[in-house]
């Protein structure tokens, strides 16, 4: 049986707009992936725990609040602490350009702003997964 790519889509932080996260979740579903959707106002701890229980390959975070430089490193740290350093993390939302290099340095696999084509996100996820031994 073909192995499904499993993706956790989560919204850390306090902003209450999850339309973007839902659009991406839907697009990944249509690309044949299994998307675990966790909803709004997740703490980094909740996200890492869900990623562990669901044994996902990818975590997608939607952040519009501007708190990404606080939230993302914490999620990465917790994933690592749980033994899930192989999980690739993608970020979408309002992320200023100057923050992108720093996020990628930290280990983020992709950063997407408003209007990013979902085809691009899907292709990047597939490329990132195929580079990782299961």
């Amino acid at each position, binding site marked *: 049986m073909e192995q499904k790519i499993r993706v956790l889509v989560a919204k850390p932080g306090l902003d209450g707009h999850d339309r973007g996260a839902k659009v991406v979740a*839907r697009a990944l579903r249509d690309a044949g992936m*299994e998307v675990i*959707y966790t*909803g709004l106002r997740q703490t980094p701890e909740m996200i890492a725990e869900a990623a562990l*229980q669901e044994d996902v390959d990818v975590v997608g975070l939607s952040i519009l609040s501007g708190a990404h430089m606080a939230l993302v490193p914490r999620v990465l740290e917790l994933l690592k602490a749980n033994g899930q350093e192989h999980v690739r993390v993608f970020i979408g939302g309002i992320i200023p350009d100057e923050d992108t290099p720093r996020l990628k340095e930290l280990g983020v696999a992709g950063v997407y702003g408003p209007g990013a084509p979902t085809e691009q996100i899907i292709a990047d996820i597939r490329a990132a997964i195929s580079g990782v031994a299961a």
Partner: protein
Amino acid sequence: MELAQPVLNGDRLALARLLSRVENDTPEGRLALDALFPHTGRAHLIGVTGAPGTGKSSLVNQLAFHLRKQGKRVAIVAVDPSSPFTGGAVLGDRVRMRDLAGDPGVFIRSMASRGSLGGLAATTAAVTQVFDAAGFDVILIETVGAGQSEIDIARLAHTTIVVEAPGLGDDIQAIKAGILEIADLLVINKADRPGVELTERALKTMLELAHPVRKVFRHHGQVMELSGAETPDSRLWIPPVQRVVATEGKGIPELLKAIEQHVAHLRSSGDWVRRERARLEAEFDLLLQETLVSRFISKIPSTSLDSLLESIQTRKTSPREAVYQLLNENKD
């Protein structure tokens, strides 16, 4: 990587990984299942099913929350449908289970149905075995939003809860065959909504038709007795109807009491053992069939199989004749 032993030792990462192997039915997953099998048979499997939007996830959330207060370790397997077109899925049951976050005594796993039509995925039973071996006391299994015939859950679970909500259908829906028949407990969720009395009456009427009981009533001023079953069989379980409001946790302690009563009934009547035996026999039968078929097919040259299929397609041989022909030619 050997995963069975770490799972028995309580390693959560190993557990998560093994669940994926088992879900994907890999050789490694199968071996681990064999190794874990002697450690299974301890957990109480509770199925939660019902139409989409009746509040299954919210109910599971509350049940798990209250079971944790009793000190029980709880695993949740939540199944949502896969797209029949792309094979993808959005698994959204965790959204309703926020109260359980951060509790190491709870483990939630979402599963896509991956083409299975019975309300569960093909490997859901195997996944529950892993949780069972890992020492979880209760395993809550949430089916896909079920219609009228997704009844696999009744074969898997010891206790099946069917969730209804007010306003979903009248008493004709309630006497149709299918999902209501498999209920060990009936729950009317969203019981703060109008129409709850109608739903309750329809369900209770359905139950009375199925399980006639002695009733005394007044007719023209005379006390009359309507005889149903002569002596109520103490081994007979009549599903209770429980009102709950899952989002507020109302009615949950009462529901848990009813679940405990059901377990006590299963134990005392011998149904627990019977159900386990039936389930294991069915699993054995299925595996035997699968294995025999794949072993048989692997011995047949693909050319002879192709020519046989060809003669079926050109309507020279009926499918049944073709099967007999194949079996006669390949005896050993």
